[in-house]
């Protein structure tokens, strides 16, 4: 039943995404601009012990794509609450977990698709990275999207107007981006900033993807990255499902 229901909700929202091709491509614009206009600034800087600056920047941009995209997923819930769509679904016997999973898996599909476009553009700019590492990067994008999408949907039930939701998400995502070292590795940071960044879960994810892009798949960074990503996603889905059960009441 859970599989059936999840597939059903996933299909409904995926068709909705496919209908708005513009929105599907638009999300990739911001990281693409960073790639084009920020990436070239780094090519001659010594950013890490191994590899090129692209192997450091692109993993950050991938997670940035997911961070900024998935965090805003909740806007759809605010809209659908107004239309009565969420209640109409909640009154049917459909699984509450499926109502959430169908949505976040659609989001993961969309952002992994955008991540593929971004990596293709990066390869054209000069990125060279091992194929397994690139695939691991997509897996992290998917996991982070599931986690942040779930939390965003949950938050949208509590904060019921777009006027409050937008600024709140911005206030949460901006420091998360800066403190996790998405743009430049935190190894460049002074000690206090490095310590602070370890309190932000995304730090572990970006370190893991950077290792993957450099070809080290069994590092400590990778272990912590996987643990944090899976733990964060599990926690977020649990919270999200609970909120779908009560619709925030």
């Amino acid at each position, binding site marked *: *039943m859970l599989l*059936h*229901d999840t597939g*059903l909700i996933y299909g*409904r929202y995926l*068709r*909705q995404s496919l*209908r708005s091709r513009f929105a599907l491509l638009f999300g990739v614009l911001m990281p693409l601009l960073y790639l084009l206009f920020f990436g070239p600034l780094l090519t001659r800087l010594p950013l890490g012990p191994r590899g090129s600056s692209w192997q450091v920047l692109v993993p950050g941009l991938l997670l940035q794509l997911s961070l900024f995209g998935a965090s805003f997923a909740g806007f759809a819930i605010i809209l*659908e609450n*107004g*239309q*009565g*769509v969420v*209640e*109409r*679904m*909640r*009154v*049917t*016997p*459909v699984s509450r977990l499926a109502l959430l999973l169908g949505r976040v898996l659609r989001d993961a599909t969309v952002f992994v698709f955008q991540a593929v476009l971004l990596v293709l553009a990066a390869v054209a700019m000069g990125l060279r990275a091992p194929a397994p590492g690139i695939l691991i990067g997509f897996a992290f994008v998917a996991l982070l999207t599931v986690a942040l999408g779930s939390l965003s949907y949950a938050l949208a039930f509590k904060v019921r107007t777009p006027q409050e939701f937008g600024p709140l998400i911005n206030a949460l995502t901006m420091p998360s981006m800066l403190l996790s070292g998405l743009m430049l590795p935190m190894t460049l940071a002074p000690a206090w900033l490095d310590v602070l960044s370890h309190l932000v879960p995304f730090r572990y994810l970006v370190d893991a993807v950077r290792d993957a892009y450099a070809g080290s798949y069994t590092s400590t960074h990778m272990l912590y990255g996987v643990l944090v990503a899976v733990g964060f996603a599990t926690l977020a889905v649990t919270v999200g499902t609970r909120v779908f059960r*009560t*619709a925030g*009441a």
Partner: protein
Amino acid sequence: MAAAVISAAGLARTFQTKRGPVEAVRGIDLTVREREILGFLGPNGAGKTTTLRMLTTLLAPTGGTASVAGHDLAADQVGVRRACGYVAQSGGVDPSIGVREELVTQGRLYRLTRDQAAARARELAHDLGFAGLLDRKCGTLSGGQRRRLDIAMALTHRPKVLFLDEPTTGLDPGSRADLWDLVRRLRDEHGTTVFLTTHYLDEADALAERLVVVDQGVVAAEGTPSALKLRYGGSIDASLQDTFLAITGRGPSPADVTPVAV
């Protein structure tokens, strides 16, 4: 007398807000019999929608018990969901999605197979008179067409009980009359019990066999329209409007009768 299909005892809901607890519904006792069309009336804020949302499992009660079609509200939510259909005030379709797709998805949410859901969508559209609109976007429908679609969505699984929250608000007189006919037909042909809230007292008078008037979260009066008119309005010829005002104790205030300035 027909068996009870909905029964509630002391059903209550208190919301915790920043300004302290708000008792939206303080204790509703009611019984709805099979094949009955029940009008659920009350002033704004009386707790009508909250009661409906509790009876349809959308909102957990904070007190009391209820059962719908033999399924206990607290113990068997899935059973209640299978037995009832619900049309919210806002409806429940996405304007950017096609009519057929919404109906088929709804059928699949009620666990019909793909073919069954497609057949049920055609059947409902034909029955409710919008067969020609299946390939349109929901957002392009008129108010009356939209309402019929909303009701079709709620009838997908042939529920025993249909809950309608202010179904004719915003409809033109022709569409309202159509909707009244539809509600009567559902009861007569399919034996559906209909529980509807409305602010239109002529609607309650014309459609409902029995009325339950709620005020401040409790049942203030109940009975057939004529019994209520006789008891609270003073005569069987009293208007339901006057009867309603007598029950809820909210006649027009002097300020409303004599405007200070025009």
